[in-house]
């Protein structure tokens, strides 16, 4: 009886991971279309291919924990529970968007869920995450901060300064590096002293390091859970490198002529969503029909989000001058 209950909740959890990853993929691909049609402007960076990282890691967090990320942020926002309607409306620049249309795709925030952005200056968000971790520890909330970063940010001083500070102050902070092999048009090996080997990036600061297959949501979840437990227990910061690939260009403005189609196809074979789906099917934890239903429901969620964004009003002109000061 009890074993069965555990099984069911385990199965529900796994299907929830599948559902979240599929939601993000669908949200991203439809956003891309909306950009092409001119509904979304500015820069749009899609998360397609990397879903397992945000979903796997954030699934292990508690409400009191903080999440901070960079500009490729839709996946993290959705995994943290942002309503897709509010995310899409922000991409459309509408008054109903998460930042009332003022921040756009690169600057999503939802303070009520301890989701503190959405930051478009490479590595600029890392000190902020350290400060949130400091606040959590100082106030004894038991919370930790989880910060996502790109491989490119390892080359900025803020990365090294924040790692050092977090170690010196023993902060409850987990760095989760999403190594998608490129920083814009630059392959990691061309810009990084160790040729893009980021596995030990925390080591110079005495920070425990782990590496994980970023296409495998369950692996990400296990590694993230261990790191978060460790840092929550007061053992100081942790660092994880997740190996992944972005299926799309850097942004929608990127013609992607710096990497081969074959490379992309190889990685698409490891699609994190099909990977989990196939595994669940093999273990008889689900059926094709059940997965199809999940996908169709999420298709509707995204359709509804787009409809909501389209029908939402533009911000009124007085909004230009609000939110600068309290």
């Amino acid at each position, binding site marked *: 009886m009890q074993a069965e209950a555990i099984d069911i909740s385990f199965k529900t959890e796994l299907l929830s991971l599948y559902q979240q990853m599929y939601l993000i993929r669908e949200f991203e691909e439809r956003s891309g279309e909306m950009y092409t049609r001119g509904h979304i*402007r500015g820069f749009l960076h899609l998360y397609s291919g990397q879903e397992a990282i945000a979903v796997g890691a954030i699934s292990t967090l508690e409400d009191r924990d903080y999440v901070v990320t960079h500009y490729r942020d839709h996946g993290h926002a959705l995994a943290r529970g942002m309503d897709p309607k509010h995310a899409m409306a922000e991409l459309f*620049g509408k008054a109903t968007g998460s*930042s009332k249309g003022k921040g756009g795709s690169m*600057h999503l925030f939802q303070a009520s869920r301890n989701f503190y952005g959405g930051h478009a200056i490479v590595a600029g968000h890392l000190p902020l995450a350290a400060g949130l971790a400091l606040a959590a520890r100082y106030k004894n909330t038991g919370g930790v901060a989880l910060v996502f970063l790109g491989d*490119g940010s390892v080359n*900025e001083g803020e990365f090294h300064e924040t790692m050092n500070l977090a170690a010196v102050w023993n902060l409850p902070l987990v760095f989760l590096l999403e190594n998608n092999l490129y*920083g814009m048009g630059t392959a990691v090996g061309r*810009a990084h002293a160790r040729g893009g080997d980021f596995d030990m990036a925390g080591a110079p600061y005495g920070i425990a390091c782990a590496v994980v297959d970023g296409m495998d949501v369950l692996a990400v979840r296990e590694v993230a859970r261990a790191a978060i437990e460790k840092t929550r227990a007061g053992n100081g910061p942790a660092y994880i490198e997740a190996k992944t690939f972005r299926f799309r260009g850097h942004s929608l403005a990127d013609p992607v002529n710096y990497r081969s189609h074959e490379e992309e196809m190889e990685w698409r074979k490891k699609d994190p969503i099909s990977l989990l789906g196939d595994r669940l099917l093999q273990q008889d934890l689900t059926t094709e029909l059940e997965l199809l239903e999940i996908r169709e429901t999420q298709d509707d969620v995204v359709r509804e989000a787009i409809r909501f964004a389209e029908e939402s009003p533009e911000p009124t002109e007085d909004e230009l001058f609000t939110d600068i000061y309290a």
Partner: protein
Amino acid sequence: MPEINIRDALQMGHHEALENDPDVLIMGEDIGAYGGAYSVTAGLLDEFGPERVRDTPISEAAFVGAGIGAAVGGLKPIVEYMNLNFALLAFDQMINIGASLRYMSGGQVSVPIVYRAPTGGGIQLAATHSRSYENWLAAIPGMKVVAPSTPADALGLLRSSLLDPDPVLMVEHVLMYQQKGFVPDEHFIVPIGLADIKRPGSDLTIVSYHHAMVTAMEVADKLAARDVSAEVIDLRTLRPLDMPTVITSVKKTNRVLLLEENLKTGGIMGEIAAQIQENAFDFLDGPVVRVGAEDVPHPYNRGLEQSMIPSADKAIAAVSAAYGI
């Protein structure tokens, strides 16, 4: 030469610099294989190789500082920022080192470096990617700052910047790379520190620069329809400022509109307004009119961003209110 755009003019200027001077090298993020965020350096890596067209890690403080060091060591680096907003990470290098070495060393050390950076709002990149900090750098002794608004000025100022023994920042407005214009066939330069009267007139002086020049010309056109003749001055250089050209014009027209896209508070036009009242107070028919962007961070939403950036109609309304024209 047929009409070309600012991007092409800059690309030509880089090509010619690499060809003519073996000490010139270019560095920046994604300027090589990717060809530059705005394609200014497209094709140069293939032709000149990775020693001279250097892709950098995303490490602004390091590669800008290294550019300064290379300049001190006798090279002529052109350092491209992907966007002027990212220069904030290297302000320490540009100001405390690049702009200070000559003075601190009592004249022993030269820093002949050229920084280039896209800047400006208007393409919905929101607060972190749209600000223009050229006025901040133009407040630094030891820096020179140029801001072309035509292809000929872009090429001519790039040539002058490369000949200059001191650090020069060229800002390039993101909305102007496609701006077309004639570029002389014969070799020419545009001296740093020289403004340009882009349109002569007698009733009102308009002082502007960069993309606000497009608005300034629109203002002049609309005023012409009301029989008001506006003289439009393109500053082209923000430091050192060409105040003689401005003052001479104001003494002739007795009215002045200072128009910029940058935030009004702390903008370069505040400095120019002060210098006008110091040097031409008795010639003014009314207060100096100053129009700039609203003092807010750039919003993402298109309508909000457009209402933040000054329009021709807003500028004309301000001129009418001050001078009754």
